[in-house]
């Protein structure tokens, strides 16, 4: 395989607080290759956003401490000055945020905000930038773009604002697009529109996408490879097929089991994961998922590493043997379907 476009090596992010040190990201390594879509799945507080915000060097909190490397096209982004990183943000790596209302500036027209970004990165005239903005707004499916370019963010609906955000993120043809929960704030019908748009852009421009989400349905639709995060670490990583048809980690099983699915007969009960995620200030010794895991055994007090345990590129951080996993899996994900079988 070619060398990755973006590579994260053992990234650690911690925040010093009054109550102690919060280990938000605790040794994350993963790569993004050209043209692919990497889905990062996890619950709130699992560190998925902090990881990608750190890649973009968007965390300015003086109490934050970073360790590790982020290699983008041979450069370690962690060593760059603010000026240098600014030339990469937008031009090399674009980002879409969850809430399109708070991530657009309410007092500037949307056209102006897109033009500003283009003129920051490329030496073009005001008029040329404006034409590009109109072109981009048309490309992301905003009707009447020539007039709408002079509208303010509040004059757009949620879905339309997210389209504006996407237009802005792709305005300088980045090779990497980081989308942090791009559809979480939107209705399902609008979500379908936005996902279709991201797919189209990916196809037209060959952009590699990092898609952060908590929705397993969205990654089933969009991602080539998937990383599942829990308590600041990646606990399972593999191709889309690996994750959905051969999941190895009990937490991934739990995530799959707790979804009320439309494509399956309705179970009497959902297979909920008991308990709560651990506090990032006092992570348990050993496996962070141990306290909530039904299959815990003695070895789980040792920290499991993210390893290739089956001789493929499918990695997981669980001590159970592959055979044990195979035996336990279906019972954990959908116990009722298994029960009914003779």
């Amino acid at each position, binding site marked *: 395989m070619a060398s990755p476009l973006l590579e994260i090596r053992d990234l650690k992010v911690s925040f010093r607080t009054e109550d102690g040190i919060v280990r938000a990201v605790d040794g994350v390594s993963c790569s993004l290759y050209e043209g692919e879509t990497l889905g990062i799945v996890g*619950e*709130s507080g699992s560190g998925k956003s902090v990881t990608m915000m750190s890649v973009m060097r968007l965390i300015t909190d003086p109490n934050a401490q970073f360790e590790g490397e982020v290699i983008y096209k041979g450069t370690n982004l962690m060593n760059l000055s603010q000026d240098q990183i600014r030339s990469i943000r937008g031009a090399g790596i674009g980002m879409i945020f969850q809430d399109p209302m708070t991530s657009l500036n309410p007092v500037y027209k949307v056209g102006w905000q897109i033009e500003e970004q283009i003129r920051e990165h490329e030496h073009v005239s005001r008029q040329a930038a404006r034409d590009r903005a109109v072109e981009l707004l048309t490309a992301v499916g905003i009707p009447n773009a020539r007039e709408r370019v002079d509208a303010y963010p509040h004059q757009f*609906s*949620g*879905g*339309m604002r997210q389209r504006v955000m996407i237009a802005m993120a792709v305005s300088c043809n980045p090779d990497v697009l980081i989308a942090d929960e791009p559809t979480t704030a939107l*209705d*399902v*019908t*609008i*979500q*379908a*529109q936005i*996902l*279709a748009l991201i797919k189209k852009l990916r196809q037209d421009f060959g952009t590699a996408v990092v898609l952060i989400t*908590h*929705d*397993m*349905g*969205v990654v*089933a*639709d969009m991602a080539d490879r998937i990383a599942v995060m829990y308590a600041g670490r990646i606990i399972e990583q593999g191709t*889309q*097929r690996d994750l*959905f*048809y051969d999941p190895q980690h009990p937490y991934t099983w*739990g*995530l*799959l*089991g*707790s*979804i*009320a*699915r*439309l*494509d399956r007969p*309705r*179970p009497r*009960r*959902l*297979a*909920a*994961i*008991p308990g*709560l995620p651990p506090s990032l200030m006092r992570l348990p010794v050993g496996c962070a998922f141990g306290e909530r895991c039904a299959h815990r055994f003695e070895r789980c007090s040792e920290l499991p590493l993210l390893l290739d345990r089956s001789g493929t590129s499918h990695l997981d951080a669980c001590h159970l043997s592959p055979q044990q996993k195979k035996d336990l899996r279906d019972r954990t994900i959908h116990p009722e379907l298994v029960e009914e079988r003779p």
Partner: protein
Amino acid sequence: MTDGAVELAVLEEGPEVAKGEVLLQAEHLKKYFPIKSGILVQREVARVHAVDDVSFELRAGETLGLVGESGCGKSTLARCITRLYDITSGSLEFEGADISKYSRRQLRPVRRDLQMIFQDPYASLNPRKRVGAIISDPLRIHRAGSSDQIRRRVLELLEVVGLSAEHINRYPHEFSGGQRQRIGVARALALKPKLVIADEPVSALDVSIRAQVINLLDDLQDELGLTYIFIAHDLGVVRHVSDRIAVMYLGKIVEVSPAEELYQRPVHPYTEALLSAVPVPDPDLSASRQRIVLEGDVPSPIHPPSGCRFHPRCRYATDICKTEEPPLLRHGSLGHMAACHHPLNSDTSPADASATAADASGIRTTSA
């Protein structure tokens, strides 16, 4: 609750409505919000048609799911039923009495039976009150026993929702989102209500926690014989909890059906599109599935489209849809009704269906 040790005097009366009987009946319910403009004299210049002529029936012990996109009026409908909003017109019968025009004083005893669980567990709990006070408030307001009895009831409620007695003196900020939602559930159940309206109770929660709260609500319904109106935009969750489901679009119910039936054979094109837009956590299925991407946004409820409100976004729309509003008619099996000129998956054409509409149970036709 499990041992039934504490029974408070005022709450001892048994359920007046037996399981399966009509508990709540709404007819031609409307809620319009005025939009006012003017400097000295505020004049009404337009109206938001938030809930526009909705009729339905709810039977004791069942769960009615209410789905639709943001702005379709599902939360407004919930607040009309609990009379947190005044109703513009129409009738609302709860246990046989029309409460649509009740005064605050008249509503008091009714409120005991009609409780609500809110979406945002951060905003719906007073941050300056302890959990014990939050849960006991409804009991004290309704004078449901001595302080000692109330305390015992609060402890019992905490146990029912899966919290422990030591939580009674803590503040809401000390809890996670899922635990806070449990406090909200305990508060709603304090007075042993007959009908609980849950407005997006799990939308703000993480997937694994969401399943815990759904299972809790499920168990409580079995144990306490509750009737639920369950509002959510997640169609998977709604299917899981509901016996019947009503789909709303721009202030109107466009389809209502037994839960499984709605997913197997949607009749209204909006329902079809909504179902097809839900991402499926199965890559192969997701790739092979025909997806209907609706164009554009939901139109403004200030000036809703003429005829069928869905026609500007509907791929089956013809001229009749622009001019004539389709009535809610029966399609196929008992209790499956939809308002569409071009129904899908229906053996009965609307013309035949209109004759049989009157005997359909569940929702009544709004076309008088």
